[in-house]
Structures are given as structure tokens and as C-alpha cells.
């Protein structure tokens, strides 16, 4: 028995996603509330910057004496120029707040003020029902629909109607194929090989881009894009795997949510495309771990035939020697074009 990683490409599944703030904040969504992907479900506010004032040094006092000279305490809101401490004598020195803020620490002759505000708004990312509220942190949302996991995302979230420009799984998207009629939509294509296309998509603007692969040199521009980008298969010139291609293109003109989360192998966060679908009964949730077995549909992670789908016809006992000379546990697989291959198990992931 060998554990198999699972890559979800599912026509219908129950999808449950936890959406949590990185810091404590306020949860805005309510239990059982119906949310759309761009709804703000929680928000957090934190200080943009801090001001550290060494009052003792500025007034030339001992820390204890400086504490006695303080005119503020923790929690006080101060206007810019407010006196924080003043010394003694005929011409006493004063220490003033350089800008508006709130005292967060005071003692030992020192004062720390937080100033400015940074606000984070956490969006639902998917449409669905809030099935759990986690106080001060976020919510758990459940929906039903098609799920296509990607391998790379640029960290953005949006929703739009899918427009298919991928006549084939490896169709190259160029700037001249984008026109004003596509404004606000999610474009599906095979590959992008130039920064101009990403820029043109930004200028329309698009609501999202689903690609099979992208040149690694374009990653900085893709990270900067204001719209979500999800890569289904990887980097370079990979075509979209046939399962993702069929599912995405057959749902063209439907609304899809691109939750282009940055892939985090430790938390399990993965970029994904969710196509909400109406259901009468709740479908089964995806399975995250299985053992390799004959009959499974798998995706090849490495050459030869990287990105292709195949089905396992047999699991080889012991170790198998590959053209590279390497010996590893292996499976016999049959590609969709009928070709038979021997593949190391670690180069396979189960699609399902």
C-alpha cells in the first residue's frame, strides 16, 4: 500500500473552505448566511507603524523619574503634538507625540505609540453558506459545484463568467485575442508567453485568467496582476490536462470563482476554480488521501508525458529500473492515447 497524493478535478463535490484572518479581528458574516465570493466575511485592523520614544533619554532623566514625568498611560489616544512627558525646571523640556496615535506601552522611561491604520478585508472566496463562525478569526463556508485544483495562484480572488479561448488544451493566449466584449469575464486559455498579454488582461480588466501553464519569467508580472490567475498544470509550455480542460470548457459561460490562493503545501491552501452548481442533495466531499490502486486515473508529474492523464493498469512489485537508471516503486499506466508507460509512483497523483 502506497499513499497517493490526490489532485481534485471533480464535476460535482461538496466544497468546504475555512477562511481565516491572519490576526484577530471582527467576523462580519453570520452563521447560515449565504455569501458570494467577493463578500467581506471578516476584517482586521492593525497599526500601520509604531513610534518609540525613549523619554528618559530625551529628558535626561532616570527611567523611574521619566515614568513620573509621563502625562499619558497605556490606551490613551494622542493627537499629533500632544505632550507625552515634561521635565522640570524653569525651561522644562517636553516630549511630544510626533503624530496621532494610541499609547500601547509605557514604562521604564519609554513610550510606544501605534499610529495609522492598516485594514484587511477577508473575502469569502467562494459562494456558499456560512456553516461555522470562528470568533475573531473567520468562517467556514460550504458550497456545491465543480472543483478544479490548480498548482499555482497569484493570491487574488474574483468571480466572473468563463469565456473559453482555448480551442485546444495548449492554445496560446495573446493580447490581440482580448477585446472589450471580454471585460469582467474569466478567460480560459492554454498558455501565456508574454507580459503584454497579462498587461492587456489587466487593462480590460478581466475578472480572472485560467491557464494551463505560464513561463516562469512571467511570474513576477503575474503576481502583480490585480486579477486572479490560476495555473492548472505548471510552468513552461504544458498543455491543460484533459480532465481539467473538459470540465472547464464544458462549463464555459457559467460563472466561476477563481480562488487563486498561493499554494502552501503545509496548510493545504491551493489555488482552485470553483463552478457553483445547483444540487438537490449534498454531494460527497472530495477524498484527500487514497492508496494507489489499478483503475485509478492519475496525472503524471514529470517527464515523459508530464501533465498527461493516464489510468493505472498495474502496480509493479518491488523496484523498477527506469531509463534514467533510477530504481523506484512503479506503476504501469495507460495514457489517453493508448501508449503504455512505466512511471515511478512518486511521479503520479490520483485525479479525483
Amino acid at each position, binding site marked *: 500500500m*502506497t*499513499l497517493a*497524493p*490526490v489532485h481534485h478535478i471533480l464535476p460535482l463535490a461538496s466544497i468546504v473552505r475555512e477562511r481565516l484572518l491572519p*490576526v*484577530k479581528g471582527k467576523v462580519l458574516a453570520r452563521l447560515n448566511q449565504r455569501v458570494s465570493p467577493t463578500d467581506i466575511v471578516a476584517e482586521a485592523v492593525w497599526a500601520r*507603524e*509604531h*513610534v*518609540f520614544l*525613549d523619554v528618559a533619554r530625551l529628558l535626561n532623566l532616570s527611567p523611574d523619574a521619566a515614568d513620573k514625568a509621563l502625562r499619558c498611560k497605556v490606551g490613551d489616544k494622542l493627537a499629533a503634538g500632544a505632550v507625552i512627558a515634561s521635565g522640570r525646571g524653569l525651561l522644562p523640556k517636553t516630549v511630544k507625540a510626533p503624530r496621532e496615535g494610541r499609547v*500601547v*506601552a509605557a514604562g521604564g522611561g*519609554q513610550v*510606544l505609540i*501605534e499610529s495609522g491604520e492598516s485594514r484587511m478585508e477577508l473575502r469569502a472566496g467562494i459562494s456558499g453558506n456560512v456553516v461555522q463562525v470562528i470568533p475573531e478569526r473567520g468562517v467556514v463556508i460550504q458550497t456545491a459545484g465543480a472543483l478544479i485544483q490548480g*498548482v*499555482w495562484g497569484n493570491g487574488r480572488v474574483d468571480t466572473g463568467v468563463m469565456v473559453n479561448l482555448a480551442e485546444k488544451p495548449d492554445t496560446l493566449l495573446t493580447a490581440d485575442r482580448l477585446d472589450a466584449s471580454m471585460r469582467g469575464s474569466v478567460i480560459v486559455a492554454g498558455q501565456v508567453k508574454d507580459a503584454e498579454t497579462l498587461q492587456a488582461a489587466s487593462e480590460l480588466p478581466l475578472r480572472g485568467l485560467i491557464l494551463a501553464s505560464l513561463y*516562469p*519569467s512571467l*511570474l513576477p508580472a503575474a503576481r502583480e496582476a490585480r486579477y486572479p490567475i490560476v495555473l492548472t498544470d*505548471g*510552468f*513552461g*509550455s504544458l498543455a491543460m490536462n484533459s480532465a481539467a480542460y473538459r470540465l472547464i470548457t464544458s462549463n464555459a459561460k457559467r460563472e466561476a470563482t477563481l480562488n487563486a490562493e498561493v*499554494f*502552501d*503545501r*503545509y*496548510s*493545504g*491552501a491551493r489555488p482552485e476554480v470553483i463552478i457553483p452548481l445547483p444540487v438537490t442533495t449534498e454531494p460527497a466531499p472530495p477524498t*484527500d*488521501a487514497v492508496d494507489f490502486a489499478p483503475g485509478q486515473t492519475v496525472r503524471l*508529474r*514529470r*517527464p*515523459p508525458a*508530464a501533465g498527461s492523464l493516464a489510468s493505472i493498469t498495474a502496480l509493479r512489485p518491488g523496484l523498477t529500473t*527506469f*531509463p*534514467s*537508471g*533510477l*530504481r*523506484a516503486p512503479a506503476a504501469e499506466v495507460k495514457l489517453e492515447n493508448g501508449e503504455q508507460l*512505466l*512511471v*515511478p509512483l*512518486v*511521479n503520479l497523483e490520483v485525479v479525483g
Partner: protein
Amino acid sequence: MPVSLVQGDSLLAVDIGGANTRAVLFDVVEGEYRFLASGSAPSTAEAPFKDVSEGVRNAIANLQSVTGRTLLDADRKLITPSQVDGSGVDAFVSTLSAGPALKTVIVGLLSDVSLESARRLAETTYARVLESFSLTDHRKPDQQIDTLMRLRPDVVIITGGADGGASRSIQKMLEPVGLAGYLLTPEKRPAVLFAGNQKLDDEVKSLLGGVTAELHFSPNVRPSLDTEDLEPAARELASLYLGVRRRQLKGVDVLETWSGGHVLPAAYAVGRMLRFLGQVYGGRRGGILGVDIGASAAVIAAGFKERNTLGVYPQFGLGENLPVLLQYTTLEDILRWSSLDISTGVLRDYLFQKSLYPSSVPASKEDQAIAQAVTRQALYLAMQTAKRDFPRSARPPKPGLLPYFEPIIAGGGALGDAPSPGQSLLLLLDAIQPVGATAVFMDRNNLMPLLGAAAARNSILPVQVIESGAFQSMGAVISVVASAAFGSLVLRARLAYSNGTEARADVKFGNIEVLPLALGQSAKLTLQPQHGADIGFGPGRGGTIPVSGGTMGVVIDARGRPLILPDDPVRRRELIKKWLWTVGATQG
């Protein structure tokens, strides 16, 4: 070894790597400890498992099927101690390198003194230094606080001040760390190691005690301005690393329970093993060298008479960090090692695609050629980085080269899993470019970290396991330092076997020669350098040395040091193919 010294306890050792978890069983056979078998399984630090103990149980289950010995009970718990029916083991140890590199901030007084020691200390574990603060820093304390709030480091290492020396300046450096810790929520606070002026320990405790995830103290890394002692602090940092991992990764606590606290960072365990080997091999010229390259990091451990060095370089790991490699090198510099004609675009795609699937392996010849070129360059860069911290007394024969090392022990997935011994050896010679005469051992079963961890539990075990030949002897390697025209004679070699026969070779510059000497055999090797070539006795000086055989026999590497490859890509690839052929590792 007297039998009475063997405690007779079986020991199970598990290494949890970034890609794979390996379980290794050691037990007493005919009165001595032996490496019996190993089993492996994918590591499970990542989603969906998020529990390293799951991969450990799977690896042990695999080991059970190899050995037929029951080690886990029906609830998949380790059976310990061993039972009368032969199931279970008496002792368990574990090493760990899985998980992202620890986000680290270093704090010191002077950038070229204590901060440099802090950097070297951080490099003894799986850490990525994101930021450094020193007295020469132009940022105000509040800017440093905001930097810490933004970075949210896992670890802060604070150094500075000779013992009994500066204290006020260090107090000043502590303030931003303490205030940032105060502002961060408890689960985001960093673990802090204070390795500075010991006089300040109490003050550090009162300032930082309540605002850090954990606070560790170690003896000063710079007890005086001109003295550096990293080892006690490295030991404390290893303990801190495990504390951070315990919070980050589920299942580490299970391993600690099973092992009675005998869990170590893998790199630290490699360093410990090298110190131990240094005692065994001590007295020979130069130092001893251990290299290990895997998905998490490249590790270079070197032992010298006066001190040991340990460098852990996640930036040169072959897993999820692979794209980071391009911050340190170019695609062209990686491809110069390839025996096949591969475009820079294909290589770039490889680096990014492999980072998505760190545990995947090369199945095709082209993929293997790329993987080995990347490994060569990553290990080469790691070696060049580690070299900076070697003691000055470890003099190389020429500036810029390595000092003499004997023996060299190499391990890690990328080296140990190479399809043939010749490929492993050539990869190692290309990447680290040793000089003079040395013996090379390949740790094919990645025992180094596990033996290092086992040493604390059973000091006899590593000695007997190594003496039993658990490391694969590759044989003797003679690396010629010479500047000569390609094809000109630089060395005459005569290998006198114990049965009275001999083998001779006239070695030309740019070539590799292999003289057969089987494992277990010994012979006398007489070397006569030509045209000022240096094989470790000084320019032009020859001599006779005893050599032991191995899988590769005696390998004479006369390609020069540093190894300069031809600029012409066609000629370069032909040469690489020729060298591969010579060491019996042709890639076709």
C-alpha cells in the same frame, strides 16, 4: 570490541526529510551492532496529513514488511521495549528536517563580529535569515519594531558583547525585540536564543521572558573579541528548532514520547556524527568532510583539529526552494554540468516544476541529466559558501581551493540515489572539487544523521555499524592540482597490489584514470607528479601512500583545480561524456 560493551538493545531510527521518511533498524548480530534494513514512505508534514508521525508509521510499516519483524501494534503505536516474541524495539531515535526553513532575524552589535557569528550560528540549522539588526543599522528602534511585526520571524538570535564587556549597547538592541514580542499575539511571538554577554542573562530573562514563544540561553558565541565558539549555541539552537517544529508540525510530540526526547535536527545530527568520526580518524592531515544534499537543504559539515563547522543551506536544497537557486547562480552555469544539450528554457521550467513536486524523481535520461546538473551546481555553491567559515589554519594548496580532507563522506537522496557508484562519485568530485589524496565513502542508506542521533543513546552502536562497512567505500581518490595544457602528462602512477602485481597509469591533464582495487583490498600507490603538479606533497613532489580499495578502485582526477570546463558546449559535453564513461557511469 568486547561483547560486554554491547548492551544488546535493538534501535529503530527514523529520519523525517522534506520528501521522504526513512525508518532504519539496527540490532546486534553475532555480538556486534549492524545496520539491518530500512523502509521508507513519503513524508507527511504537508497537507492533507499535516502530521509527521503518519509518515513515520508508514515507513516503519514498510520496514516491517522488509524484515518480517512486527514493530507497530494494532493501533499503529511503536512496540517498545522489544517483546519475547521478537516484536518491537528497545530504543527509538529520530531526526527531522521536514518543514519550511525557519524565518530568522539575527541581532548583534558589530556587523563584522557578533552579527557574523550570529549568521554562522543560524547556518547551523534549517534557517533563512530574513533580516539583521546591529549597532551600525541606520533604522530607528520603531522601524525595527515594525520590521519584526511585518516579518513575524520564527526565531530571533541575539549575540553581542564579550563576557563581562558591553552591556548597555546590547540592552538597546533587545528593546525592539521585546516590544515587538509584546505587540504580537502569543502564537505569533518568536522563539529567542540569547548567545551574547552572559552577564546579561538575568536582564534578558526579565526583558524578554514574557514576550517570546520560548527563551533559550547559551554560552556566548563570542566570549572575547577574537574568540568564537559556536558549538554550545548550536546545540541550544537545535533544541530551539525542535521547539518551533513542535508547535508547527503535528506529530513531533509523538516522536519525542517514543524516543524519550531523542529527536534532533538532521543537520545537527550529521554534525555530531562528523565530530565523532573526527575522533576516529583524527591525527591525519587536514580535516574530514561530510556532505549531504536533499530536498530540504544542502549540509556541509567539516571537522578540523581546532574546530568543526556546520553549514545548513536551505537555499541550495533540491525541493520546494529550487527556484531560489537562481538568485545564486545562472541557468548557464547549471547547464555547464550537463552531458546532454538542454536549453535554458527547459532547465528553468524544470526548476519551477520540480519545486511543485519535491518528492518526484527523474525517470527519463534527459530529466536525470538536468537533475544531476542542478545537484552539482547546488552542492558546488554550498561548498563555496561553507568554505568561507573554515579555519584559517586549514590551508588549501592554492588560494581559492579546498583544504585537504580525508575522508569525505557523502549522503543525501540526490547522491545516494544516483543510478551508479560512478555517477555518484563524479557528481561529488565535480561539485566539491577535493584536492590531494583522500578516501571517499558514500552513505547510500543516509545513516549519518541517524547514527548521530543514536550516538547519544548508544555510543557503541555508531562505531560498530561504521566498522561493519555500512558506508559504501568508493575507494581512493587522487585529485591533482596542476596548471597544464590539456593532454600533457601531469602524473605517473603505479599501484602495487599485495599479490605482487601492479598497475600503471600515465595521467594526462584533463583526464580521469581509474585503477582497479577491489573493496577490502589494500595496495601501495606511488605517485610521480610532472611539471609541478601537486597531489598533496607540494608542487612536483611525489611519494608512496597506502590505499584501500572500494567500489570504484583508485580514481585519479587530473582535470585540475579549480575544475574549468571548456567554453565550447559541444566539446564540453563530449568531455563530460568521456569522464562519465571512464567512471562507468555513461548516460547514453
